[in-house]
């Protein structure tokens, strides 16, 4: 609450007048000789409790009535955003979440959360006497002075985007800006509290909090969140990956319905390829559906672009997925192994018959340095861990984003690579097998298929294994808990360690239940980096302009806003590159920040969370409060009058009588 005529607040001191009069009256007593002293003393003793309380209440009512009158005269403005106790503001720093999720409509027929919150902020600022407004929008993260709150909704820096927000960074920016600002400031955060935007586990929060705390005048933080209360029904379409396979483009897509969606729906999905459109009906049986779409490319097509879209719904920003493709790249692998059964199985897994674009070559370990090139999709290392020049070559390959799958060397060795070693070979007990017990069904090359089918990894039986030892993430384990498959992520590439070989003296790994999907998935990952140059997420390096490049949107979907081209999804020509830019996957994550997480990230700051149902018809966050104060004056005076009413006398006892 703030006061538009704060000078009247001095009159709150008038509340002391009844008390002063009372005290003066007590001092200005007359002296009277008195005979019936015993009754007086008794009455004084008895009146100390209830009567004194009544008298105090009367005084309090009078004082409060005067105070409320003074407060009403000071023109109080209540603001849910401001809360109580706020004084006049000099500067408001508005951190506006412009991420794609803010375009969700809180209800059918309503504007988006972003538009609603802007309207509320505009009205509130007008009520507060229009303090200086500085906007830090989540897309550009740079402070901008807004001359008038009335123009807030019309600014390009408050328009919708497909970007994501990075709140630790935004709050640090706000703190940085406030170091050069004097007067009383507040930071208002307008956000849907999407957890992926707030990064609650991010270590940068500590720095952001420290920056705020170190300000000469620590600003209050007000968070305005529009809760959706179900919101308008929404379905999002997301491109998981795209890769070219000969004359086909394989698009892995996901349709995600909102949490409250029930039943099966049919959604028309429109595909646009180089301007040609087709629509097909897709049945979504539950809340989400992952599917692969094969787009047959025109004959002789070197490159192109397009999009898939679904009809407009509760959030118009998540209904499209853009893609682009370039010339087909051959998928090449190298097996570093001595000749033998294992090498043959690995060659079959890396280039199965019928996969014409996949090729594999076997080299002896000592010849590796001569054949390694960065255009390899995968290196299968079935030899002792490399050292010397081979290790250097392998490190370079990994740094370029390559994938390497290590198999056990077969004997104990002290050699290490990426701080990883192999244990001594472990033999299964006689008549027993080593069985896989647990593997990651959601992540890694042993994940379940798109249709939810699990790999038949339990069929794998080993009589011999070696355990990878080092700081890597296990993705599958043997029955005894030792890791079978681990992943070590380097700068850009990934090194995989698998604990057995496709060799009859080791295991039945070569029977294709495990080896083929694992190798093919890692191969796919390795090949994707060549297609990755055609797709990017907003805000990623791949979507950024290089020196000398100009951004030009070339697709025909929607109505682009040139001022926000860097923050809108679409197909762009960046210099000589064609890049399909999509909204970040994190924007489709429905998880919201919990109150505990909010307490943690803003620990030590005096933040206020105002959650308003988006359906609220009132567009303002503040309102005049003089009327409630006048009602309070009346209430206090009535209560005082009631307290002052004389008690009914007991007429049954006469005052004077004779007998």
């Amino acid at each position: 609450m703030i006061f538009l005529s704060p000078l009247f607040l001095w009159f709150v001191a008038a509340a002391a007048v009844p008390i002063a009069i009372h005290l003066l009256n007590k001092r200005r007593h007359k002296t009277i000789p008195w005979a019936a002293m015993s009754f007086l003393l008794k009455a004084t003793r008895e009146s100390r409790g209830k009567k004194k309380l009544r008298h105090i209440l009367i005084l309090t009512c009078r004082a409060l009535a005067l105070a409320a009158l003074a407060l009403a005269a000071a023109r109080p403005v209540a603001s849910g955003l401001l809360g109580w106790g706020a004084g006049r503001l000099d500067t408001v720093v508005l951190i506006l979440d412009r991420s794609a999720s803010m375009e969700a409509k809180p209800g059918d027929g309503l504007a988006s959360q972003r538009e609603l919150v802007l309207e509320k902020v505009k009205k509130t600022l007008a009520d507060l006497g229009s303090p200086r407004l500085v906007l830090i929008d989540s897309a550009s993260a740079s402070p901008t002075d807004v001359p008038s709150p009335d123009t807030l909704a019309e600014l390009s820096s408050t328009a919708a985007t497909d970007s994501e927000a990075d709140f630790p960074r935004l709050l640090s920016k706000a703190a940085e800006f406030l170091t050069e600002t004097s007067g009383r400031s507040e930071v208002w955060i307008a956000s849907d509290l999407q957890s992926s935007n707030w990064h609650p586990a991010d270590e940068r929060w500590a720095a952001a909090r420290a920056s705020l705390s170190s300000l000469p005048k620590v600003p209050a933080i007000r968070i305005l969140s529009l809760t959706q209360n179900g919101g308008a029904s929404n379905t999002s379409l997301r491109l998981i990956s795209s890769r070219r396979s000969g004359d086909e483009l394989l698009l892995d897509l996901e349709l995600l319905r909102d949490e409250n969606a029930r039943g099966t729906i049919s959604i028309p999905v429109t595909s646009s390829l180089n301007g040609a459109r087709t629509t097909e009906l897709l049945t979504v049986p539950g809340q989400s559906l992952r599917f692969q779409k094969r787009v047959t490319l025109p004959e002789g097509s070197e490159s192109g672009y397009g999009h898939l879209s679904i009809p407009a719904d509760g959030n118009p920003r998540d209904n499209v997925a853009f893609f682009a493709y370039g010339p087909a790249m051959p998928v090449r692998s190298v097996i570093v192994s001595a000749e033998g059964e294992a090498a043959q199985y690995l060659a079959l897994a890396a280039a199965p018959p019928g996969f014409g674009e996949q090729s594999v070559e076997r080299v002896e370990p000592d010849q590796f340095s001569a054949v390694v090139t960065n255009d390899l999709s995968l290196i299968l290392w079935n030899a002792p861990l490399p050292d010397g020049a081979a290790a250097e070559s392998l490190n370079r390959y990994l740094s370029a984003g390559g994938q390497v799958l290590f198999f056990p060397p077969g004997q104990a060795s002290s050699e290490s690579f990426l701080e990883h070693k192999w244990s001594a070979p472990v033999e299964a007990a006689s008549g027993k097998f080593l069985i896989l017990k647990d593997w990651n069904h959601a992540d890694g090359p042993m994940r379940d298929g798109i249709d939810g089918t699990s790999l038949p990894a339990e069929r794998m039986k080993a009589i011999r294994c070696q355990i990878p030892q080092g700081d890597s993430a296990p993705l599958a384990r043997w029955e005894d808990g030792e890791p079978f498959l681990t992943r070590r992520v380097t700068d850009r590439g990934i090194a995989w360690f698998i604990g057995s070989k496709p060799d009859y003296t080791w295991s039945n790994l070569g029977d294709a239940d495990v080896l083929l999907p694992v190798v093919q998935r890692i191969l796919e990952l390795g090949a994707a980096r060549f297609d990755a140059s055609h797709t990017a997420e907003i805000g990623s390096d791949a979507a950024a302009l290089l020196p000398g490049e100009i951004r030009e949107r070339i697709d025909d979907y929607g109505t682009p806003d040139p001022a926000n081209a860097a923050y809108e999804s679409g197909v762009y020509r960046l210099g000589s590159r064609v890049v399909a830019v999509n909204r970040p996957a994190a924007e489709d994550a429905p998880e919201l920040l919990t109150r505990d997480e909010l307490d943690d990230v803003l620990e030590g700051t005096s933040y206020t969370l105002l959650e308003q149902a988006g359906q609220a018809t009132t567009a303002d966050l503040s309102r005049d409060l003089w009327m409630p104060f006048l009602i309070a004056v009346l209430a206090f005076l009535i209560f005082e009058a009631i307290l002052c009413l004389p008690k009914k006398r007991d007429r049954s006892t006469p005052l004077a009588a004779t007998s």
Partner: protein
Amino acid sequence: MSHSFLDHDLLSRLGSLPLEARSPMMGNVAGRHRSPHHGSSVEFAEYRKYVPGDDTRRLDWKAFARSDRFYIKEFEADTNLRAYFVVDASGSMNFSGGAPPKIEFARRIAASLAYLLVNQGDAAGLSICTDKLHLEVPPSRRPAHLERLFTTLEALQPSGETGLIPALHTIAEKIGQRAFVVILSDLFTDSSELADALQHLRYRKHDISVFHLMDPLEIGFQFDSPRRFVDLEDGTAIVAEPNLIADEYKSALHEFLATVRAKTHDANADYQLVTTDTPLEPLLRDFLTARLPKSKH
């Protein structure tokens, strides 16, 4: 005989009304009041059977002649009345809230009734009591005695705490014969001790009449601003807001009045709660009329 508290017109108007004792009196000369002694007087009372030991001189021989039985003839003897006016002279009697002080009212009642009594041949005495003083003017039926009584009343200066209770006990012990005891006080004393003293008087068969004098302000307790109340008896002071404590004060006062009334009734005493703004003539007229025997109405 000119005193401010004596209203001769009033006395002459009340002169036609006798002041009667409600119980038999024991005077030393013949008078208008019944005596507890049955004997040879002019008024026949009753017959009773002779029992051995009775004075044979009181046998009714005529009755014996008619019935052959011995009867003793009983008569009621009339005597004069001895009245004691016990005036409380404590400091509280000096209180005046606008009406005449309570002591002034006590003077008027005592002087008027004493005048009427002496005028009808009865004796009137005075007892003035405080915690430090117990002044007595013995009862006398001589008209000249009245002047001494009035002078004593006029010179009376209330002060100190009340000595009413010891004074009543002293009177109860000291007066050997039945008498009419008129108490004029605000009775600001312990009510149980007052009850004991009244019972003491009743035990000695005295006719007791209590004039409970109160100032209207003491009963109404109406003030418009805080006051510093100073005790008239011991000088202690408290500052209070009358508006705040009025209810409790009145409640305590009512309780006190009810207790005093009950105690005086228990002692078979005649009780009159009198505010000092009450006109004297109707007060005394009602008092005298109420005491008349029913047969004489």
